[in-house]
């Protein structure tokens, strides 16, 4: 495929959609309609003044700390639970229950237990985002190929070396699938925890805009959240491609044959 054709495929539909929006906004007198020509200005004014440091960065920071801790804890606990059969049978039904609780209901619960502060918001994110990573790690560790484990044993690989070179890489595809879900849940919880119990942060600010009918600013907030989501997704895909490049290569070869 030529570069031109690729670019056309990449940008064709987005340009078309933005064009349609622009036309619709021009012929619309609706108060709710976001205006494309002033949107960029509003976006910059709203978020890149003092709010960037007072609201955006703290929110993103809490999200980053919470999800990274959730991922680390989830993998560590998952490796342990997944490799001890008894522990797994003992804990799995309970973990399935915790996973099934819609994470946002943790916000009022933890607000009660901890109070409405930064620590609570981070803990909410950890509590909600840990389950997909944890359960996927358990499953991934449990289903490591038996021939692979035998091979590791015959070559005297054990303990930390085996974990690092055999168990974790082999479970990585499943762990990464869990991480993707955890990131999505973490982002949701970042916003919800601020909407529900806060006086600052992205979620709080957007709700304030909506309540005060600052429609253009509200739209710019929605767009900012969207951009954060897209950025997280890009970072994730970059990491995933690096960690799992062998996995996708292998799948491609199997598909081709």
């Amino acid at each position, binding site marked *: 495929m030529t570069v031109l054709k690729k670019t056309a*495929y*990449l*940008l*064709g*539909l*987005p340009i078309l*959609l933005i064009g349609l929006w622009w036309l619709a906004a021009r012929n619309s007198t609706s108060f*709710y309609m976001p205006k494309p020509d002033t949107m960029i200005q509003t976006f910059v004014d709203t978020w890149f003044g003092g709010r960037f440091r007072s609201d955006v960065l703290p929110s993103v920071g809490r999200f980053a700390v919470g999800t990274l801790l959730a991922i680390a804890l989830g993998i560590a606990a998952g490796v342990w639970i997944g490799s001890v059969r*008894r522990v*797994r*049978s*003992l*804990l*799995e*039904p*309970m973990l*399935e*229950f*915790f*996973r*099934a*609780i*819609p*994470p*946002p*209901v*943790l*916000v*009022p*619960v933890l*607000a*009660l*237990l901890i109070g409405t502060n930064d620590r609570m918001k981070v803990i909410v994110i950890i509590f909600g985002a840990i389950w997909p990573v944890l359960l996927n790690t358990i499953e991934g560790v449990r289903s490591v190929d038996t021939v692979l484990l035998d091979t590791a044993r015959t070559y005297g690989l054990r303990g930390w070396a085996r974990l690092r070179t055999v168990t974790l890489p082999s479970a990585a595809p499943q762990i990464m699938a869990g991480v993707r879900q955890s990131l*999505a*849940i973490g*982002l*949701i919880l970042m*916003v*919800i925890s601020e*909407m*529900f119990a806060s006086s600052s942060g992205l*979620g709080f600010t*957007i*709700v304030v*805009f*909506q309540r005060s009918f600052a*429609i253009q600013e*509200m739209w710019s*907030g*929605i767009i900012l*959240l*969207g951009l*954060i*989501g*897209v950025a*997280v*997704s890009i970072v994730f895909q970059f990491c995933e491609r690096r960690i799992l490049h062998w996995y996708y290569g292998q799948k491609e070869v199997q598909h081709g044959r």
Partner: protein
Amino acid sequence: MSPANSALSAAGTAAPPGRPRHRGLAVPSGVLGVLGIVGFLATWELVVRSGLVEPRYLPAASSVLGELASLAATGSFWEWVGLTLRTWAVGLAVAGVAAIVLGLVIGSSRFLRQATHSTIEFLRPIPSVALIPLAVLLYGTSMQATLLLVVYAAFWQVLIQVLYGAGDVDPVADDTARSYGLGWTARVRYLVWPSALPYVMTGLRLGAAVALILTVTGELVIGGGGLGTQIALAQGVAVTEMYALVVATGLIGVAINLLARAVEKRALRWHVSVRREAVA
């Protein structure tokens, strides 16, 4: 097979040494799972009873479960559950139908797949809760506001899977269909849809879980009735009730997961058996 078996079992019974060492403590995993739940509840109860945590922050397990039982005896509890489930089901259905139709249309054409790829990859990771203010603006604190979130979130889960599925069509089968002059509708019906079906089921399972999360989120943050709204109302006022309602949402989540997995398993089994017959 059978003569070998009889010889083997005879030899097995004649060689008892070493048996207990290998068997270990034979506790079925189901029993262990129940033990795990009982152990958790007991720990919870003890933590509160011993005064480690004050009951006004965390009531004992027994009082929360008791509260849940007495709630379950009231008609209004089931009304809340009904409302939550209705929003969930309507949202999932709308998202499912829209995603399947769009997915099949896009997925069956190479041009559409390539042309929409960048847009889909951009829209998909946008967190659905970003739409909360918009939903409130459009629909107020009604169920429709929550429904908007549910549909948006579940839609992408299903759509992505349908697209994977439509891309999984065997190229040889596709060439065959084309060479026999099958039209677009016939190809979708006889080729794309059957190939995509297991993926559709997976998408619906993932969508069902996400739809529940967003249903409760919407009810909690926006209002409009249902279990989520009740949790928000009970917060700080009726702590035991709040915990009982949280447990109830977890139980609904477990039920939905089990149901979705059972449905998916059936669909997949059907798929695999059909494939095996085709190969043999």
